């Protein structure tokens, strides 16, 4: 655990450029060979296992200001990476506060070409944590269905998007899988379009409901009959916590309320809960 308080932690500016490179800059007037540390946040109660230290280089024109750039490497595993600075070897690491986060290159209307290699999508998004520190949200997906538009109807929800890192073949479909061990699955017809685009409508009436119980159905796209389904999510813009921002209306059918929403990981799901 970091001992740093908000008052003593340095602020770091960061920027994502058109090629998806991350750049961090901060003032460290007394440092000699500082490093930036990204540490994968472990699950509650578990030990830290993974971190990447990156060398900070003094910015020529402004002494005391240090910069680190992260290109395609190191690859960040999916999760939340907390940012620290190691000012020098003797001093404890300090957790960093966010300064200006220039993420305009990720804004939805100026899209960066997604970072894809060997069919794996990698997204890295610097964000402000709930307790006010800087962290990097990373997604790493072998095959991904990017959701561009969610349009709820009285009986279902129509989703428009693009398939990345996989190709459509015969037997493509949308798959809804109820959360929990060996939950049931339902399929919905999917129409592939040009360049990997797709549209499907999930009909709420096709989802079995249990009186009084709340269930969550995760949404997948199966590119072909024998292909592994990939998760539908919205990852390609500047919004790190989408759940409270991209909010869609509910629909009531019979005694159940259906609500399409983005999870805390920006994945698309449908919640089914008992009505009044």
């Amino acid at each position, binding site marked *: 655990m970091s001992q740093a308080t*908000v*008052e003593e932690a340095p602020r770091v*500016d960061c920027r994502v450029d058109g090629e998806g490179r991350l750049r961090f800059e901060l003032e460290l007037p007394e440092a000699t060979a500082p490093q930036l540390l990204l540490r994968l946040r472990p699950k509650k109660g578990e030990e830290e296992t993974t971190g990447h230290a990156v060398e900070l280089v003094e910015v020529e024109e402004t002494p005391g200001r240090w910069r680190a750039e992260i290109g395609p490497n190191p690859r960040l595993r999916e999760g939340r990476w907390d940012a620290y600075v190691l000012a020098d070897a003797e001093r404890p690491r300090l957790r960093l506060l*966010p*300064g*200006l*986060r*220039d*993420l*305009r290159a990720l*804004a*939805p*209307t*100026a899209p960066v070409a997604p970072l894809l290699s060997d069919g794996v999508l990698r997204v890295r998004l610097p964000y*402000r944590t709930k307790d006010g520190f800087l962290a990097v949200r990373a997604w790493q997906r072998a095959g991904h269905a990017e959701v561009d*538009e*969610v*349009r709820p109807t009285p009986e279902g929800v129509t989703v428009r998007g693009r398939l990345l890192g996989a190709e459509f073949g015969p037997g493509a479909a949308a798959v809804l899988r109820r959360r929990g061990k060996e939950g049931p699955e339902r399929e919905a017809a999917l129409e592939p379009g040009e360049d990997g685009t797709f549209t499907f409508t999930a009909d709420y009436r096709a989802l079995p409901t249990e009186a009084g119980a709340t269930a969550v159905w995760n949404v997948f796209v199966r590119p072909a009959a024998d292909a592994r389904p990939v998760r539908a999510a919205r990852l390609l813009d*500047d919004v790190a916590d989408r759940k*409270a*921002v*991209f*909010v*869609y*209306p509910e629909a009531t059918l019979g005694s159940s309320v259906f609500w399409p929403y983005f999870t805390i990981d920006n994945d698309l799901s449908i919640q089914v809960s008992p009505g009044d």
Partner: protein
Amino acid sequence: MRISFLLHNAYGIGGTIRTTFNLAEALVPRHEVEIISILRHREEPNFSLDPRVRLRPLVDLRTERDDPRHLRPARVFPAAEYRYSQYSALTDERIAHCLATLEADVVIGTRPGLNVHLALQGPREAVLVGQEHLTLDNHPPGLRNEMRRVYPRLDALTTVTHADAATYQRKMRLPGVRVEALPNSVPPPALPPADPNAKIVVAAGRLVRVKRYDLLIRSFARVAAERPDWQLRIYGKGEERDRLRALINELGLYNNVFLMGAAPAMEAEWVKGSIGASTSSFEPFGMTLVEAMRCGLPVVSTDCPHGPAEIITPGKDGRLVPVGDQHALGEALLDLVQNDQLRASMSQGALVNSRRYDPVPIIEQAERLFTELHEVKASGRRRASLGARVGARLVNRGHLVRDAAFAAAVSTMRTVRRSNR
């Protein structure tokens, strides 16, 4: 000079706090500057403050909220002031003591109630400056009367617009008080300007009725219908949030209009957009307009009292539309959305024209004002012209009588209502 500001609560969030911090920080390299925060409710201020500016809280709500003196009503702080319920016998006592012992050359009040304290209790050897961050016309008659009674003891009164300064000169009897417009300042952004080709309209402010975000959302329906690739992002939080969310759902705009929540650093959000928007029905200054323009965004705004018309040059760096006119607002937005060339040239206009709100010229003006008044005070040449005072009194009589009648009517109504309970 030793300069002290009186601020309601330096630990909160708002335009007056931000602009006071900006001014204090700009003055601190050459002067001894402190901010006296009447109230304090948390350890650190929300906005960062240069450590050279001394911050001195008078009443700490974390420990003194239940002090018996804080439960008794204030007598000096005027009852007709908006913040009256947050003031008390304890704030009266602390402010009086603070002003009685204050060693300063210039003391600046930042809201009507504190200007009243300053006029009545400010050190006579110091220059006393009252700042108006709202507008005179919007104040209740009872407050205007109290201001009229005590403001003549101030040395200067600053408003944030020329229009409001003119109103003060027309409607208040302030002989010997220098009335001057001192706009809020916005520092140059650290980030490069916005790209005019972005497709996001950005608005920022508390989600409250006076900001009329309902109007903005309704007018954006036209934009979304014509250009579904455009987004509207509204930053801020507030009591209207659920109602605005319901409106977005009702209009089916959930793929285009987003309530983003509060952003700690708006600058990084402005630069993602290419048009700024403000739809308030009342905006004494309009800090967000200037912030957006400094980032290179042309702004579409309602022509409400008083700020927008002084900030925006229509056709050059933005558009003004009548207050509450959804159709005109939609037209103005769509016009900019559909015309890339116009957006690009207005973006340049916004960058150039907003430089006049840079702290450098604004602080020069403030410093000049404070220094001149200080010199006048030091040489005892104050209040030279008695003739001007008499003239002003005659001219402004009408307003005085009218406000007194309103104030009486209001207090009668309150009495009636109370007895009906």
